[in-house]
């Protein structure tokens, strides 16, 4: 905790310490479906050591599955985001079957169990004890109804659910908490870097540092609209000389990634100032350097769980232009810490506006950093998870004095 002192708000650290007086040495199991790629795995990589450090016996397990399983869960994921997908009874049965197999090999005994996203949600059928909480990271505000209804049968057996944004929550007969995700200010992804290192990273990727850089860091996924980003960039290039970087890592649970990457490469062909970087997993330090080297960071998502790259860039004092989707409007205060956009044209317009107004860019960056400090650092999320656990053990009380 001392490492966060002076960085995170003191109140968050104090509450963590208080809660730990009760939760110390108790077991806290997290289960998801991938150890690398995407925001969930990233948060767990950072959070587990913190939980252990403060005395909670935390464990992180992964459910194993084959290509068929992940094809099905990708379809479920897309359907929850509102895309039309056909999930047959056979597919649901296979989804359950794989979870059943995993339940046989994973030790599910714990005082609190946090199941992340829909892939492992059927594990609730094999609950042995403790408080089971479903953590939904994705935007389920307009899901395909039949798919959501099927999953709901599992969800309603949990004691509580956690959503990132109020509008994702549904009327269900269980406690539903709203907890946004977070970034770790002292991780390789967000720590301070020297100018030499930042320049070195640009050199390694053969990106010139002589013009403003526009960056989007995300998986190669249609919901992140990489093609829309390139269209906006091409529009900006009519007025402003600048560079575009699209950087992303592959995720083992996303079979569509390669197809989208190829589409993006094709669309960018013939534009030497567009750099498409396929970074290996755990390229955090490189991403950090790229974000710090940028003038503007984009997260032009059409659908989004939360879009943590927004907070990452704001923490580095960058103005951010984001699609008004999922959790992005919670992070970007329009006109204050960046801009929310709804179209390719809007994205191009706001890029030009910021490029031509460095004073505004600086002001937005400074305000954004403070906003992230108070709302989106990992210590706040640790505080919230422990608070949910504690409140489930003190059910019925809305005010808890510690």
């Amino acid at each position, binding site marked *: 905790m001392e490492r966060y002192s002076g960085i995170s708000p003191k109140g968050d650290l104090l509450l963590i310490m208080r809660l730990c007086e009760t939760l110390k040495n108790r077991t806290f199991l997290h289960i998801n479906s991938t150890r690398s790629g995407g925001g969930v795995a990233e948060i767990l990589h950072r959070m587990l050591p913190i939980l252990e450090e403060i005395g909670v016996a935390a464990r992180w397990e992964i459910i194993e599955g084959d290509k068929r399983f992940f094809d099905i869960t990708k379809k479920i994921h897309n359907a929850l985001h509102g895309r039309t997908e056909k999930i047959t009874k056979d597919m649901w049965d296979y989804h359950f079957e794989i979870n059943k197999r995993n339940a046989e090999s994973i030790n599910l005994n714990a005082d609190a169990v946090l199941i992340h996203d829909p892939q492992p949600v059927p594990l609730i059928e094999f609950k042995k004890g403790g408080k089971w909480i479903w953590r939904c990271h994705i935007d389920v505000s307009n899901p395909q109804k039949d798919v959501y209804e099927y999953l709901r049968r599992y969800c309603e057996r949990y004691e509580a659910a956690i959503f990132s944004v109020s509008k994702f929550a*549904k009327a269900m007969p269980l406690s539903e908490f709203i907890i946004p995700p977070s970034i770790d200010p002292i991780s390789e992804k967000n720590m301070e870097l020297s100018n030499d290192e930042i320049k070195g990273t640009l050199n390694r990727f053969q990106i010139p540092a002589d013009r403003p850089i526009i960056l989007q860091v995300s998986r190669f996924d249609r919901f992140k609209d990489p093609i829309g980003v390139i269209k906006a960039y091409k529009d900006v290039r009519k007025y402003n000389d600048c560079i575009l970087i699209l950087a992303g890592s592959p995720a083992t649970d996303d079979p569509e990634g390669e197809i989208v990457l190829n589409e993006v490469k094709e669309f960018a062909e013939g534009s030497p100032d567009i750099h498409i970087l396929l970074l290996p997993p755990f390229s955090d330090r490189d991403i950090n350097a790229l974000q710090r080297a940028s003038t503007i960071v984009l997260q032009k998502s059409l659908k989004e769980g939360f879009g943590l790259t927004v907070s990452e860039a704001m923490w580095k004092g960058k103005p951010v232009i984001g699609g008004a989707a999922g959790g992005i409007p919670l992070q970007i205060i329009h006109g204050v810490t960046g801009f929310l956009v709804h179209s390719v044209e809007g994205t191009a317009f706001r890029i030009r506006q910021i490029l031509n107004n460095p004073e505004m860019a600086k002001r937005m960056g400074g305000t954004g950093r403070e906003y992230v400090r108070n709302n989106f650092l990992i210590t706040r999320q640790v505080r919230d998870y422990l608070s949910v656990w504690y409140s489930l053990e003190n059910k019925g009380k809305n005010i808890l004095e510690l």
Partner: protein
Amino acid sequence: MTIPFEFKQYTSIIKSTGKKAKNLHDLREGISAVSKESIFHHTYQYSLKAHVLEYTNDFAQWAGESIEERALSEILSNIDPYAFKDIDGLRKELLNVIDDYLKNFPEPRDAVSGNEFYFNEAVTFIFPAGIRVKNLAEFLMAIKYIDASSIYYHFYESRRRLGGIDDFSKWFEDELGKKELSEKIRLIDPFMHNIEKIREHISELLEAEVKNDMEAIK
């Protein structure tokens, strides 16, 4: 012997009720049906958020920003939650205001999809901030740097516990015998300032009082 003032910290985690409103009729229905905790969260706890001073509660903010019913927003903003002896009294007043408005404007517009009003509640944790002060000078230092949620707890939330007054002025009066200072503190309008401005005002009043005490010949 003076009992020291112990600052407390106030942190909430948000719980969804699963209910939402897309227009004023839905909002009315929601306000009449949701838990007391939800009404409390959307009104009293509004001051805890960094906010624009155009509004004093979430209902007013939503009416103004999401469905653009500006006149209703003004009336809702003018409701003082601390003027009611319980949440049901406040709930009744909110409903009266909306009913009156609906009589004149019976067909309110819908919010754009995604901008609906989401009824939430909060689970609140109150715990010592680890700062205790024994006199005015120590208090002055503490108020300058204490977390904003602490000021919320002692300056806003206290009004429910103490029947309309704040913890700070009560301590100045009861423990330090500073009746005049207490009265000045009680004159600060909690709704016309955000927490940072409240911090500034209290600091200014204390600064003057400490200076005065130091210059006094006793």
